[in-house]
């Protein structure tokens, strides 16, 4: 009996101490870890949209710009599974751009695309690929500017499909599925934007409140 008690107390004590330690560490690191995912995976795509609009960005300005994008993000609840993160690009001399992520069904799973809309003209301001697991050397070529720049300046009513499917996008040779996935993601983003335009604009205008994690 005493032995069983000893076993139980030892195990429970170790588990309790471990739980407390991990919970504490989680409190300290969780926010930073979440920021890292945004900074290293999402923000670079936003930066590429910004650069695609002809805005030069020197290497030493990059970090500051990334911080600005990260700090300026908003969240809007559109009744989906989780709230949508909105990023804002503001540059002198051009109208603000709202950027958010949408997904398409790629060759190796979901393909994530950051899609930017010009808030004044509502035209597409550009796209940037965030996550993909496409075939190296083929599907991954949808990352190239040659492909992504086709989307810049397209209007809300453009046919976001590859030419094979009757749209306006030149697919990457040998990577039809991946090209289709990008077009699909952009199309989904367009539909989301059209359906929730007011909520998105309201969230963007909601001042400098910091988005909750």
């Amino acid at each position: 009996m005493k032995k069983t008690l000893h076993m139980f107390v030892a195990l429970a004590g170790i588990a309790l101490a471990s739980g407390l330690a991990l919970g504490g560490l989680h409190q300290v690191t969780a926010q930073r870890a979440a920021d890292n995912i945004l900074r290293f995976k999402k923000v670079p795509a936003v930066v590429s949209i910004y650069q695609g609009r002809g805005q030069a960005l020197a290497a030493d300005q990059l970090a500051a710009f990334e911080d600005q994008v990260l700090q300026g993000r908003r969240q809007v609840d559109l009744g989906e599974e989780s709230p949508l993160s909105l990023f804002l690009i503001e540059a002198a001399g051009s109208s603000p751009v709202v950027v958010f992520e949408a997904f398409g069904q790629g060759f190796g799973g979901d393909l994530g695309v950051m899609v930017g809309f010009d808030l004044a003209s509502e035209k597409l301001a550009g796209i940037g690929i965030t996550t993909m697991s496409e075939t190296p050397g083929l599907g991954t070529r949808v990352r190239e500017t040659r492909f992504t720049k086709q989307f810049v300046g397209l209007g809300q009513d453009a046919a976001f499909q590859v030419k094979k499917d009757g749209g306006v996008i030149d697919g990457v040779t040998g990577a039809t599925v991946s090209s289709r996935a990008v077009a699909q993601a952009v199309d989904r983003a367009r539909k989301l934007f059209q359906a929730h335009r007011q909520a998105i604009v309201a969230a963007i205008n909601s001042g400098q409140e910091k988005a909750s994690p």
Partner: protein
Amino acid sequence: MNHTMELVIGAIFINNILLAKFLGNCPFLGVSKKMETAVGMAGAVVFVLTLAGMITWLVEHYLLAPFGIEYIRTMAFILIIATLVQFVELFLRKSIPALYQALGIFLPLITTNCAVLGVAIINIQEGYDLFDAIVFSAASAAGFGLALVLFAGIRERFETIRVPKQIEGTGIGLVTAGLLALSFFAFKGMI
């Protein structure tokens, strides 16, 4: 259906868990000297991995995620696997002694087989649903078994050939595994 086939073929041949993802190499080199032990280990892994894949998926989605404590996933999964292995051992010994005779001694080794924990984590990271997770776990285990049995078949021949003394045993085993992995490369174009 097509998707399921892709998952199965991908897990067995293209991204073979042993030869392409490097999970479970310790038992791979440890128990592959004899065909009998290799078959026994392969059987035990298929059994435990499929079961573990299913249970860890359920725990992740009904226990960890609702409470927002996914960060202790590693801890939770390894404890589940360790407990599961104990239960399977007890169960087999009591109810199916014949199977226990065949697999028994390999069961304790499975707790520290990183293929089991690895596949459980991959299931979650890839966002599989329950059915896909079970299929992927079973197919990965089958891939493990296939590679292990093939490798044991090759390795039995080392008994009779002369190998430079410096690379006897593990050294030549690793080089052979490399060649086997190379031959699995031929499947890359399949999907």
